[in-house]
C-alpha cells in the first residue's frame, strides 16, 4: 500500500497582537547648543544618587579643575532620589550655569 508524501494542510490562525498601543506622548527634544569652550565657564556636576556617584564626580571635578583653565565647578547632590526631578536646582543651573553633567547612572 502506497503512502502519501503530501504534507498535511495546516490551518492558518488569526490572532490578536497582545501588545499595548504606543501613545506618542513623548515629544522629541533637541539638545541645548554647545559651548565653544569650557574655559572660564561655570559647569554643574550633579549627583543623581546612585551609590559611588558622588565620589566619582568629586574626582571628575578635580580633573576638570586641573585640566580646564579658569573653569568654575559646582558639585551638587540632586534633591530627592534618582527618579525625581529637582526643579529648584534645575532653575539655578539655567540661571547661573553654562553647562551641566548629570551622573552617574547605574
Amino acid at each position, binding site marked *: 500500500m502506497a503512502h502519501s508524501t503530501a504534507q498535511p494542510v*495546516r*490551518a*492558518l*490562525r*488569526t*490572532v*490578536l*497582537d*497582545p*501588545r*499595548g*498601543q*504606543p*501613545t*506618542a*506622548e*513623548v*515629544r*522629541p*527634544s*533637541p*539638545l541645548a*547648543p*554647545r*559651548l*565653544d*569652550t*569650557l574655559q572660564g565657564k561655570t*559647569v554643574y556636576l550633579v549627583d543623581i*544618587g*546612585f*551609590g*559611588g*556617584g558622588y*565620589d*566619582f564626580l568629586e*574626582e*571628575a571635578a*578635580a*580633573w*576638570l579643575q586641573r*585640566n*580646564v583653565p579658569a573653569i568654575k565647578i559646582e558639585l551638587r*547632590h*540632586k*534633591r*530627592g*532620589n*534618582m*527618579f525625581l526631578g529637582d526643579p529648584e536646582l534645575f532653575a539655578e543651573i539655567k540661571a547661573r550655569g553654562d*553647562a551641566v*553633567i*548629570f*551622573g*552617574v*547612572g*547605574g
Partner: protein
Amino acid sequence: MASGRFAEFAATDSQNHGMNLRFTFPPYPLVGRPREVLRQYVEGRDPISGKPLMPQVVDALTKPLSETEKAPRPLRGASRPRLLKPDTEENLQQLFLENSWADGLPIILPTEERVAHMLTGTSADPNEVVGRMTITTNQEKLEYTVEKVAANAVMAGAGPEHLPVILALAAGQEGSMPSSTTSFARMAFVNGPIREEIGMNSGLGALSPFNHANAVIGRAWTLMTINLGDSRLGETFMGSTGNPLNYNNMCFAENEERSVWDAFHVQRGFRKQESVISIFRGWSVINSMGAAGCCRPAQEEMLLLLQAFPALHGSITFVMDPLVAKHLKEQGFNTARQLAEWICKNFKMPVGQYFGSDLVYSFGNPLARDGVEPYASWWKLPKETLIAPYYQPELINSVVVGGETQALWFTTDMVCSQSLPIDKWRPKSGVYQEEEQAARRRYARQKRHAAALVASGYDLK
C-alpha cells in the same frame, strides 16, 4: 554619565525620551570602589567608546550638534494593527516566544474566537481604554483596551470567569516587574465573594501551583506587564538576577472565613460584600519555618525576622496562616492594627545599620539631606543609637491565608500600593460560571477540608 554596564540601555532610554543625549561611560561598578580606583576611572578610558574619558566629557559639552541632535525623531510611536499576520499554530507560538511576548512558557494563542469568548466575562466595551502602563519610571506608556487585556488573559490560560479580576489588575496601571536593577517582586490577593465564585484557593497550599484561578490571574499580570507595560529584557527590564515571584506574583485569595481578624479589604474601607484585589510591591519573602508559640510568641519571632530587612520606609506585610492570627489574638492582638502598632513600638535597629543599607543610601539619605523627618533627625544620631524605623502602623499589614496544617507565616517587605474594585468589571448577567462538574469537585474538596478541621476539634470562633 552612566556606568558602562548600562550603555545600551542608556542610549535606548534617551531615544525613547525623544532625545539623543551625549553619554560618557565610566567602567562598572562605581558603588563600593575605593577612591583610588575611581580616580583611575577618571584618568582612564570610556570602555564603550575606547576614548579617554574626561576629554570625551569636554567634547560632549563643546562639540557642535549634529543634525539628529538638533532635530531628533522618537524611536517609537507607530500604531500597531489589531491582528497579526495569519500563520500556523506552530509558527505563531514560535513568533510569540521569539518576540518575548510571553513568560517563556507556552501560551494559549489569542485567536479572535478565544478573545471573543473571553469577553463574555465582562460587560465592558471591548474598545474601552483601561489604562496606560510602562515598567520604567518616565518612558512612554502603552495604552490598552479591554480587548487587549482579554487577549493577555487568554494567553495566560484564564477563562471568562477570571476576566473581572484581571481587568481590575489592569486598571491599576502598575506593572508586576518594575524596570529596576534590584529585581522587584509583587503580590496580589483577592477579597470578597468573587473568590468563591471563580474557585480561588485561600486554604491549603494556596500559594503553591494547585489552583487554576490563582495561577492564571497571577500569570496574566505578568503577561500584561510584558505586553502592555512594555517589559523587554535588557531594553526596559534590568533586574539583575530577576525574581522567581515574577512568574505568578504571589497570587491568592484571603482566607476570610478562617481568620479571626477583619478581612484585608474591610480594613482598607471596603464593604465585606465588595470584591477587591489588593496589589503589593517589595522584594523579599522569608518563611518563618516553624510553629508560632512553640518556643516563643509569634510577635517576638517577627521582631527577629525583621532584622533581615533594610526597613527602608517602614513597610512590612505578614502573610500568615489562620493559626498564626488565632495565636496572636490569644496574645492580646484583637486586630491586625494592634499587631502593627506593637511592631512599630518594639522593633529597634541601630541607626548605623539602618543608614548602612544600599537601599537606604539611595532613598533614605536624600530625605535626610533634604530635612525630611524622622530621617533628618536619625541622620544626626550616633551610629549605635537604636531607632524604630517602622514608625507608621498603616504600612504594617497582615493577610490571612492557608490550610491550618502549620502555624507559619511569611514576612515580606511588601507595601500595598492599591486596592482595586473588581465588581465594576463583572458581566451584568453575573460572573461567568465554570463547568458544573468542576464546581462540584471544588466544593467537595473544600467540604472535606472543613470537615477535617472540625474533626480536629479546632474552631476559630
